[in-house]
């Protein structure tokens, strides 16, 4: 597979899988307002992934369509971060996962907004408006929960301690990204780590949360090697398309 296709699928798969995870909250939110907030963010994310799948399908020689890309690939053909496939567990856990991702995604899309590919650039400029809002939502909840009650603080600190090991992968470029760096067809993920660190430490400090000391990170999602969770997600995500083939979303 060409590096640019792998890269675009990676960009699309992260919001698709996170959107699917957030969608699981539908009807189960802690309060109605947050139930619909999480599912509205899910809609945005799935919409963003769809725009990128449509773009991939339109590229020469692809011979596929958005539905096939989103719904019919096998597990090892999805290139999303391990972080986004982690289970929801509780509201605090979901917010931490969202915040760690949103802070990265915001910085990533600020760079993609000047991508040489006009289509990807347009997608980035458009969706950046939504991504800024997601970041705003998750960072506010980090403060409210981290600096809230003893219990809420404990929930989010536990989630941070558990999810931290999945954050390193976001800043480790794979061969398909480094191959694209010379022509600026991929962003340099290493370059956004200082900005991410700063966002995280600012919010964590205000929320009274500790940044874990561990330096050992798990990776593999970006090359299709997933945690056990991924199979369960795809079983649900792909159920309709495999049971009733050729549906359009």
């Amino acid at each position: 597979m060409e590096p640019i296709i792998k890269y675009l699928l990676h960009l699309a798969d992260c919001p698709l899988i996170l959107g699917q995870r957030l969608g699981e909250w539908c009807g189960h939110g802690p309060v109605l307002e947050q139930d619909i907030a999480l599912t509205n963010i899910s809609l945005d994310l799935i919409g963003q992934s769809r725009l990128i799948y449509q773009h991939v399908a339109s590229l020469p020689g692809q011979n596929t369509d958005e539905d096939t890309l989103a719904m019919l690939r096998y597990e090892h053909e999805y290139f999303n971060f391990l972080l986004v496939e982690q289970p929801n567990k509780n509201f605090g856990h979901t917010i931490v996962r969202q915040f760690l991702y949103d802070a990265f995604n915001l910085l990533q899309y600020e760079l993609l907004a000047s991508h040489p590919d006009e289509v990807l650039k347009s997608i980035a400029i458009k969706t950046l408006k939504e991504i800024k809002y997601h970041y705003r939502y998750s960072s506010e909840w980090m403060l409210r929960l981290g600096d809230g009650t003893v219990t809420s603080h404990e929930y989010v600190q536990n989630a941070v301690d558990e999810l931290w090991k999945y954050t390193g992968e976001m800043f480790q470029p794979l061969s398909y990204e480094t191959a694209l760096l010379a022509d600026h067809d991929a962003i340099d993920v290493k370059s956004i780590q200082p900005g991410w660190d700063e966002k995280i430490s600012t919010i964590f400090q205000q929320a009274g949360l500790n940044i874990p000391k561990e330096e050992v990170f798990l990776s593999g999602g970006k090359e299709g090697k997933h945690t056990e969770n991924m199979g369960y997600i795809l079983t649900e995500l792909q159920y309709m398309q495999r049971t009733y083939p050729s549906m359009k979303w």
Partner: protein
Amino acid sequence: MVNSKDVVTVGEQPAHITRKKIASILEKVHDPEIPGVSVVDLGMVLDIRPENNHWHIDLAVTYSGCPAIDVIPFLAKAILAEEGFADATIEMVISPPWSTDWISEAGNQKLLAWGIAPPNRKSVKHDFGQPKQCPQCGSTETSLISSYGSTPCKAMYRCDNCHETFDYFKCY
């Protein structure tokens, strides 16, 4: 010196006449989530142009994941077909990115009449602004309940005067 130009025609009508007609038909295409507000009011109609002897319409995508992305062109095609433009094509475009700044004054008034506080650029404290006033009683004292509402484009507010909850159409 003025060069005389041929009038562009599509079918039997001059294009500039038909274009106006199509624009007025599109006023009947309403957002399914916000009845009473048309795609014209929302500033979604970017271009109406003749292409190979049929009409092509560019509509702006509002939110990336808005379910109306598929419903609106479906509705528009049906309404255009009723009015004799069965072969019109509709394309949903993401560039230039849609903005709530494009909602017309009439559109803002319709939102207000529907109980939705329109986007308020003038009070930008945050990038999505905050409602100028409660659509029920007109009070300027309002509080945010949730940054998302029944659709991604709205946030939920409460009026501190009449205590009614209401939707605010966020700046985008």
